[in-house]
């Protein structure tokens, strides 16, 4: 629309560039997904025909992902971790939103920046710093009190903490943005109609925040599920899916079952992302 004054060959070149970019964007994802359906032991050309074995077959050598114990277990751990991280980070994100939108205290702006910083700290560093502190604390208790604090050793608990440490920034930003749009007179109107403070929160404010809470919860879930860098240092014996896949890739080499998992994850996360976008969009119109 805004390039009408420019000659149209330029616009056509521009369009081709944009199209090329989206092909670039899609190519590896298509490659990762498509070979899940290739009836071959290797994720490579030539195309040997369509199969769903890499999802459902229950015997070696073409063991499908839904029969691969280790992958399933990884998926289960990822799921558990992501659920914990999502609910915790939405909870703290909500309190943070109230703190920074409603609160009035010295150093508020500085602390708001502090809240954003975890998002830009490299995940590897978050991972090792939490590992160091947890191990130091655990060692201290072991040496001084002969107390073995198992949960401070690498494992699910630390993975949850590590991911929570930066995902909370995401949920806080999303929920804060929504709370800023809240019309305070709505709370006053509810009070005026005789509602108690708790009731106002339950029936007016939280329902208003709900779309942002759900959407940010979904994003938190997805980020947690796909996280690798922070998790790598904190993982114990219960390896989540990304770690399991990486091990498989490094040790066994790539097999189409990894494509099957990739396909499954892409479809799943794509759908969840869509849901989160539509939840937010629908309500923001009002």
């Amino acid at each position, binding site marked *: 629309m805004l390039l009408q004054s420019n000659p149209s060959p330029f616009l056509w070149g521009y369009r081709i560039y944009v199209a090329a970019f989206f092909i670039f964007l899609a190519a590896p994802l298509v490659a990762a997904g498509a070979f899940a359906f290739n009836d071959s032991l290797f994720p490579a050309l030539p195309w040997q025909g369509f199969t769903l074995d890499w999802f459902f077959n229950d015997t070696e050598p073409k063991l499908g992902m839904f029969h691969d114990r280790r992958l399933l277990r990884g998926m289960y751990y990822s799921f558990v971790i992501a659920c914990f991280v999502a609910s915790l980070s939405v909870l703290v994100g909500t309190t943070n939103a109230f703190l920074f939108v409603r609160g009035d205290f010295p150093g508020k702006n500085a602390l708001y920046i502090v809240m954003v910083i975890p998002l830009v700290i490299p995940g590897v560093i978050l991972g090792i710093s939490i590992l160091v502190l947890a191990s130091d604390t655990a060692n201290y208790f072991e040496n001084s009190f002969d107390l073995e604090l198992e949960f401070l050793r690498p494992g699910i608990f630390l993975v949850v903490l590590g991911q929570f440490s930066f995902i909370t920034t995401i949920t806080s930003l999303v929920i804060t943005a929504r709370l800023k749009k809240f019309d305070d007179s709505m709370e*006053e109107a509810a009070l005026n109609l005789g509602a108690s403070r708790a009731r106002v929160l339950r029936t007016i404010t939280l329902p208003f925040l709900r779309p942002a809470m759900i959407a940010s919860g979904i994003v938190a879930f997805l980020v947690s599920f796909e996280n690798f860098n922070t998790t790598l240092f904190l993982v114990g014996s219960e390896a989540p899916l990304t770690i399991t896949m990486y091990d498989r890739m490094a040790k066994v080499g790539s097999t189409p079952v990894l494509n099957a998992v990739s396909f499954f994850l892409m479809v799943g996360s794509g759908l969840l992302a869509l849901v989160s976008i539509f939840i937010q969009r629908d309500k923001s119109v009002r």
Partner: protein
Amino acid sequence: MTPNPTFDLECNNIAKSFGKVRAVNDVSFTIPSGSFFSILGPSGCGKTTLMRMIAGFEEPTGGDIKIKGKSVLGTPPNKRNVKMVFQHLALFPMMNVYENIAYGLRCSGHDKDEIKRKVHDVLERIALPDVADREIHQLSGGQKQRIAIARCMVLDPDVLLLDEPLGALDLKLREAMKIELKLLQHQFNTTFIYITHDQSEALVMSDHVAVMNKGDFEQIGTPQELYHRPNTAFVAGFVGDSNRWTGRVKSGDATGGMAETDQGLPIKFTANGQSQISEGETVDIFVRPEFIRTLRGADRQSPVEPHETSIDGVVDSLLFNGANSRVLVRGSTGQLIEADVTLTGSGDLTPGEDVRLAWSSEQATCFARHEAS
């Protein structure tokens, strides 16, 4: 304390300061039951603060508020039987119309059947019986307005506060809603307190109007009193349109006198009884356009009554607005004077025409300047 049931609301010397800023300054008034009371003032005059204190969202720094004779100081907003229609209505978008109206009833623990009956009853009364299942965003501006009022009225409040609720509506709808609000108030027979900066809203709807300026009430009275017998220069200037001059009193006694404007125009005035005006004082003189007669042609030469002021001038321009048309006349001393005229469509005034303006000294309201403001 003896409860005085004839007043729904009493405010005694109520005051509010925000830090060093005094928003409301020892305001006292009483509102009789079942009346439509407006608080009129420019933005920032403290009227919203006053209303928020009545609703309980702000604690006054001094004075007392009584509702139905009982002091409500220290009573939290959700325990006061004062309901409020907010400026942007604050209808709950996550609930439909029924739930919005039922909200207050549910808070006070009514049972389901009673809520249902009351909601449908109130919808009936505001003439919107079929909208219970609509979502808020499906309503028109006027419907939203009525739902916001119904949401409060269903709780049977002692006083209903309305905070410029017509501000967001377009002009046509606003005119219609003025009448409708007045009718609704009659129907519910509840005391309405209406906050506005729009003088026409206040004049049309109210039984009594309080004009507020800089935290003080300038005058409380019926719309006619405010319009025809303003107590202060502020009220005279704020309520209705006026030609306004500043000048100096040349001669005068208890009944009236003669003043000369800064431009040198002599004006006869009648003292309004409220304040004595002595010679040499600086005064503000107000003359409403509808009291100015415009004389043209031969009429210009006819003698004017002794108590009238007259001035010759030339028509500068016509401000056509149907029944409210005006003429702008440039007087001999150079200033522009507005006067109401009836424009019939043929043989009307034309710019450049010589005219004479005349008005009675009773219509020249004069106020002494007490301090430079």
